[in-house]
């Protein structure tokens, strides 16, 4: 049997390159601060989060009825709806649709779900040409990697490396690494792919129950370039992506881009309700472990996630260890509470890849109690007896720090102060994995300040 790779082991390779680790850390922190600025501009921010959270809770507690209504309305719109209980069935559906329409060339826009289902490899093995069209995804597709971040898939690569990748695959000048030049090369290359595609596969950000349509958000416009030119559009959607009313989009679109990158909205928010005349639109509703997660009382809230990536950008461990170290489709804090539900043994160390500082929960636009769930997964891992690797990891990071009761204090404040007061000796002692190349994850000052400001008020 293959040895389970711990998060700490996987992170080690990344940590070896100190410059890259620091760059990665700083870049994501910068994105996090842009998010803060955007959020602070809206006095109603907390009301939006509360509403977004409540609407999703309503969705989860009515999910069966809502899916039935959604399907009925979508079908009335001329969209063909398919159900898939797992990744294999999802992939099979896609395959059959492609065969039925004699599709050879496929363009894809970003879909974390198809990544989760391993769709690209499945189709490539069957001889299809599958082209990821999101620039970041195309880069890593050339480089035979998977995304290291759900919003910024190629954030682990430096422009010099991307220049080399493009030199090999697109014939750009050797050593050229100007982002404008490289993007132009990709643009020309992908235009041709768009023009020649017979089918476009997209993800779905929101499925609207009352109107039977769905929304896809991009900045590049690649989902639209694909779907409006190809004869067949296949949209792949996790069943938790529903929202009841059209007007709920007002809340989610205001939160999504601000949380993700600090933009007020993505440049394109496309609403699909009916196919172009004479063309085909398919919607695949995918379970793949979601109905099971729904049954886990302490963890079902993770299904509220709108995949903004904010919890990754703010996480001191993610920023320093990169997405690959999680060895899962969705990395970072949210990935660490989703993945153990898919395969507890394989992902048993992930709930320990956290300082439990609570910054993830603070920034989450749908108010998922991420750090509490991480703590609860630790109990589950221990009970299931998969905890030896995980415990070793906790020992490595410094038994005293992770074992400190104050770290498990969910008020957040004491955990953060505990981290702040960690003596240098412990930080740089050899038992600390992170201290090996860096210092301890700095306590997230900003979010502590936020916390303090809120709680200081009478």
């Amino acid at each position, binding site marked *: 049997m293959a040895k389970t790779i711990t998060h700490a082991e996987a992170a080690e390779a990344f940590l070896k390159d100190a410059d890259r680790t620091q760059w990665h850390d700083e870049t994501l922190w*910068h994105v996090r601060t842009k998010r803060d600025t955007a959020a602070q501009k809206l006095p109603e921010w907390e009301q939006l989060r509360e*509403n977004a959270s409540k*609407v999703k*809770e*309503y969705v*989860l*507690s*009515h*999910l*069966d009825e809502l*899916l039935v209504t959604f399907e009925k309305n979508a079908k009335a719109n001329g969209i063909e709806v398919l*159900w898939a*209980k797992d990744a294999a*069935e999802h992939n099979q559906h896609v395959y059959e649709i492609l065969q039925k329409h004699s599709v050879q060339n496929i363009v894809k826009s970003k879909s974390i779900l198809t990544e989760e289902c391993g769709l690209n490899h499945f189709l490539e093995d069957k001889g299809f040409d599958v082209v990821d*069209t999101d*620039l*970041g995804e195309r*880069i890593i597709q050339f480089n035979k990697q998977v995304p290291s971040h759900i919003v*910024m*898939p*190629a954030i682990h690569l430096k422009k010099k490396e*991307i220049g080399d990748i493009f030199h090999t695959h697109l014939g750009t000048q050797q050593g050229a690494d100007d982002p404008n030049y490289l*993007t132009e090369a*990709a643009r020309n290359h992908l235009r041709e792919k768009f*023009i020649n595609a017979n089918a476009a596969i997209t993800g779905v950000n929101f499925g609207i129950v009352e*109107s*039977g*349509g769905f929304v896809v958000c991009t*900045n*590049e*416009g*690649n989902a*639209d*370039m694909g779907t*409006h*030119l190809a004869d067949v559009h296949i949209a792949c959607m996790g*069943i938790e992506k529903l929202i009841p009313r*059209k*007007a*709920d989009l*007002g*809340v989610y*679109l*205001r939160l999504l881009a601000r949380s993700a*990158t600090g*933009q*007020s*909205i993505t*440049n*394109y*928010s*496309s609403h*699909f*309700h009916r196919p*172009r005349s004479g063309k085909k639109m398919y919607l695949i*509703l995918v379970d793949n472990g979601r*109905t099971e997660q*729904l*049954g886990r*009382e302490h963890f079902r809230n993770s299904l509220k996630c709108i995949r903004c990536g904010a919890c990754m950008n703010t996480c001191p461990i993610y920023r320093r260890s990169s997405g690959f170290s999680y060895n899962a489709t969705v990395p970072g804090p949210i990935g660490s509470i989703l993945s153990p539900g898919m395969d507890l043994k394989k992902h048993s160390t992930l709930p320990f890849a956290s300082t439990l500082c609570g910054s993830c929960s603070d920034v989450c636009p749908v108010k998922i109690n991420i750090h509490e769930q991480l703590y609860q997964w630790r109990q589950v891992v221990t009970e299931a007896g998969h905890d030896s690797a995980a415990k070793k990891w906790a020992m490595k990071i410094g038994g005293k720090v992770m074992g400190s009761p104050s770290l498990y204090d969910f008020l957040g404040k004491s955990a953060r102060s505990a981290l702040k007061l960690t003596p240098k000796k412990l930080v740089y002692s050899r038992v600390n994995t992170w201290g090996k190349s860096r210092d301890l994850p700095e306590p997230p000052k900003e979010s502590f300040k936020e916390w303090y400001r809120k709680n200081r008020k009478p």
Partner: protein
Amino acid sequence: MSSKNEMLDKIAKNKPPKNTLPELLSFGSGERKEWLEQFSASSALNGGTTIVVKSWEEIESYLKSKFDLDKQTVSLSPDLNGNLDIASILDPHDLEKVELAILEGTYGVAENAAIWMPEEKLAHRALPFIAQHLVVVLESKNLLPDMHEAYRKIDVAASDYGVFIAGPSKTADIEQSLVIGAHGPRSMTVFILDL
């Protein structure tokens, strides 16, 4: 049992106790004058340009000065001229060489500069994406403060397809450097007609 029934059964068994659906939120307030300023500022942050004009002639002379109008230009505005008859285009692939698309917007949202573009205003869904440059004309009386007001005003399901366009096609996937013109328009200019 079909996958659909299997999934629905599992949900029925596993779902939490019923929660209630909260009321829709609403905040919109302020003056139209403020909305105009807010729109321009948001549009600039999204990588676009907003120009407030008093007449169609102003738009025309701006377009002449900024774009090579001898290249393929599609105008869906009766008040501005193009040189490609959109009615002659049956297959959107034939829009590949369009240099400039001039469209009329419906409503614009001040907080984020998003303009609602339903299919009826596009002729082809692909047009605002495949064109090298995009121009949208919007009347100032059709500005709305925020997305809540936008969804109150617009029935997004009334059109087979519709899109909020807030700026040109952009990416930051290479070391987080902003590049305009990822796949679609390399520029977006919004004329706000303040009559």
